[in-house]
């Protein structure tokens, strides 16, 4: 009979679920603006100028929104990508440990970076 092991998955699962919503709602338009419209010059000049973007990020409300969108999306991606690698056939215990370390490590690293960056910009 199988033994059932304790799990701390809720710790990543709630951010994953929240990130599912934020990434579905917000990321497409952000990608469009930063990754396509702006590089192709389809936005008015200065739309993403240093001053304007800095003003948004420096504002407490801006920080809050950025944090609320970026971190859940990040964890959503990290957690789901871990599952995807398993889906693609990483099945050994060691392999799964590595994947977990890689994905969640990535999430952890960029969480710190995001918080530090936002804390630095005023």
């Amino acid at each position, binding site marked *: 009979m199988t033994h059932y092991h304790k*799990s701390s998955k809720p710790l990543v699962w709630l951010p994953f679920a929240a990130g599912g919503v934020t990434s579905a709602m917000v990321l497409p338009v952000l990608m469009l603006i930063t990754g396509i419209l702006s590089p192709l010059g389809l936005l008015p000049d200065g739309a993403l100028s240093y001053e304007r973007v800095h003003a948004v990020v420096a504002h407490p409300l801006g920080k809050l929104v950025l944090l609320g969108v970026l971190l859940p999306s990040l964890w959503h991606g990290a957690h789901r990508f871990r*599952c995807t690698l398993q*889906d693609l056939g990483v099945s050994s215990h060691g392999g799964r440990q590595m994947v977990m370390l890689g994905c969640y490590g990535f999430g952890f690293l960029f969480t710190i970076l995001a918080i530090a960056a936002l804390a630095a910009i005023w």
Partner: protein
Amino acid sequence: MSTPTTFTLEVLRFDPTTDTEPYYQTYQVPYDEDWVVLDALTWVKDNLDSSLTFRWSCHMAVCGSCGMQVNGTPVLTCKAFLRDYVPATVKVEPLRNFPIERDLVVGLDGFIDRLEAIKPYIIRKDDKPIDEGAYVQLPKQLKRFKHHTLCINCLLCYSACPQMGLNPDFLGPAALALAHRYNLDSRDEGRRERQKVTGSAEGVWECTFVSACSEVCPKGVEPAGAIQEQKVQNSLDWFLDRLVPGRKAP
């Protein structure tokens, strides 16, 4: 187009006493537009090869015995009409993600263990005496979980769920849907008790919401939804246990 008079039935065979590997065998079987795949298997057993082995009983899609892979998809063979496949070859294989005992018969021990593990019965602190009559349960309280009670344990969902194949310890869709069914029952108080299993590493977290389970389920049990709801509930309980002083899992 003229209706065919016979068709080709291809069946996976395996007998552990003589074979080391399964192999395919084909039969020519008379075609009848009213027949289901199970009727064709029965015809073979009665007329060509009495050693062909498969389970069935009710022939009305309710006992859950006759689930098999037909042309790659898990179905109840007593409800899978030949007219939906023929003239193509009809290929019958045992359900996936289970050990093959013989021919189309798979081993269910793992599933039965899982059923027992999730404690599929009413759990209460105090039982109501029989003399006091039935519990009051409003139609909307019944509605809340009714669809999750419809599982016939046919295990098509286990055959369809890739996470079962990738992680054989996963509790799987039907067992988790059943746990949810009891959790949601207005007469039950056992949710926290069941979470020890449903919230374990082998529980809801192994599901990646592939949804193939709900897709193939012949009874509308919606195990995929039941699992997602439990992820939400289990996460909330987990956090509340850690944030609210005095709140603890049993």
